[in-house]
């Protein structure tokens, strides 16, 4: 009981802060935090794949972008779409692509898997980049945001920033809780076993392929949820949402925050967004700010090299370092 309370304390504090946040700010910061919470959902979806099952995918942005494009493309030209059909439809598109990519990509292991997932994401990227389907490199606009209608009454206006913010927060909390329960279930424990030693799981009698396939598809669907939210938020989609820079960025969020923990994914999303913002801050960096990718790249290298357990692993790293120092002092 006490252990559970301790593990929940950080997420509860964060949710509390996020609940109160709109009361303190408006405009840019509100929108920024909405965006970061959407990225946190995106990161959580990848955590299911990488952190929980040990499948390192470098093409996760494809599922993010496909749902976003589906949202725009499936929306009627004149008139708003009902959220209760367009959200499932968009997520289903991503899930379908994940289902198809999964059956092929999961035949490979290790480095091959990394390369293959990247290649399939690139394939999706090209479909939207080169064909007239997605409006090409310019992207396409969403004419009207989906409306949330229940029994003929609009219960939430997604066009209003504050309302949208709370909708995103609710989604984030729901996804977090869902994954927390899922990872503790029989299915989740099998994933953990596969990550630790897949061969052993097979020897025990688990057909590991269907489990990995299900995880891959589910991760794609959750990424699709994030993609839907981003399309609604910005009212605009473009092919760069499927680019490998996005795939690399979300992977980065996981390692920045700390893999193997759901809170790590959320923390990593916030840390990454703040870092990006920081490096572009001309007050601190003057005209060098336009070269922020250089600083970001350097930071990535340093973080991976010296903080392998991410931010959430820092207390543990600190404790281990202290213990080592104490042991050395005791020996002297």
């Amino acid at each position, binding site marked *: 009981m006490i252990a559970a309370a301790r593990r929940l304390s950080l997420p509860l504090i964060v949710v509390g802060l996020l609940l109160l946040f709109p009361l303190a700010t408006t405009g840019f910061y509100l929108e920024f935090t909405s965006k970061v919470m959407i990225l946190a959902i995106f990161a959580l979806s990848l955590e299911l794949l990488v952190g929980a099952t040990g499948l390192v995918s470098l093409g996760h942005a494809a599922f993010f972008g496909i749902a976003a494009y589906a949202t725009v493309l499936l929306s009627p030209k004149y008139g708003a779409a009902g959220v209760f059909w367009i959200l499932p439809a968009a997520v289903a598109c991503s899930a379908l692509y994940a289902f198809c990519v999964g059956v092929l990509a999961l035949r490979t292991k290790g480095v091959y898997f990394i390369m293959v997932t990247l290649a399939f994401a690139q394939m999706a990227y090209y479909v939207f980049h080169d064909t007239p389907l997605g409006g090409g490199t310019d992207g396409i606009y969403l004419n009207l945001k989906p409306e949330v209608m229940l029994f003929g009454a609009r219960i939430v206006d997604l066009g209003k920033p504050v309302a949208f913010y709370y909708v995103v927060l609710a989604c984030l909390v729901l996804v977090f809780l869902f994954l927390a329960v899922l990872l503790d*279930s029989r299915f989740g424990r099998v994933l953990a076993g596969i990550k630790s030693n897949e061969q*052993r799981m097979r020897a025990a009698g688990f057909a590991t392929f269907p489990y990995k396939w299900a995880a891959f598809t589910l991760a794609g669907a959750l990424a699709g949820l994030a993609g839907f939210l981003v399309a609604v938020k910005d009212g605009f989609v473009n092919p760069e949402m499927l680019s490998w820079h996005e795939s690399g960025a979300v992977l980065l969020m996981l390692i920045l925050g700390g893999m193997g923990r759901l809170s790590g994914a959320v923390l990593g999303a916030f840390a990454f967004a703040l870092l990006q913002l920081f490096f572009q801050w001309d007050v601190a960096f003057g005209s060098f700010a336009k070269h922020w990718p250089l600083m970001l790249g350097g930071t990535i290298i340093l973080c991976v090299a010296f903080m392998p357990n991410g931010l959430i692993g820092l207390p543990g790293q600190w404790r281990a370092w202290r213990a080592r120092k104490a042991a050395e002092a005791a020996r002297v």
Partner: protein
Amino acid sequence: MSDAAAPLLRARSVTRRFGGLTAVSDVSLDLAEGEIHAVIGTNGAGKSTLINVLSGEIGITSGTVELLGNDITKRSQPARAHAGLGRSYQRTTIFPRFTVFENCRLTAQATRQRPWNWWTAASSCKTSTALAREALDRTGLAAIADRTAGLLSHGEKRQLEIAMCVATRPRVLLLDEPLAGMGAEETERMLGLLSGLKAGHAILLVEHDMDAVFRVSDRITVMVNGAVIASGVPAAVRADSEVQLAYLGEVNA
């Protein structure tokens, strides 16, 4: 000892080739309930490959494998496990980050998976927790059930390796060098464990420790260069001239 009933596992003319190399050549053996059947041989004799083929981890080039009367030659490893075949590994394959109990519970979960039930915690699964308790009791690990597996001593890890194998209630156990790296006291404990496991199981034991093998086995098969050169009760195998030639380089009259 062994009864007159059919053997639980029958391997007939099992052959496994890797390109030009024949690792296992025309090996036949039976595993009977209540018996420990040891397979010994020099390094590179093909013992590990044999276990890998029998367990389904690698494919078979030719020959058949029958488990409990059913032909499992074409079945995958998980399918064979479901049919009642368990194996342990020479290199320890426990899950180091989980507790001892969770190690057994997870492997036991394979018997009744129910993956669609995503809302119930796995730890409340009655089937796997009961099987895990049973396996831990049987292998003498119940006292340390809550310890993190990675922190165990080598001997305890090897015991856990067996417990995980037993947790799925297999009828046939394929044990690959369970005594690897053990000191004298740990070996004694393990041998006691193995003898205790004979009831209700048919055990194949690949081992290098000759004293242990001759003490605990009911039958012994000797392999050299992938082929069987002798098979029978320990006394007969010890007296076999070919075996003596292979191991000692000379024949003792």
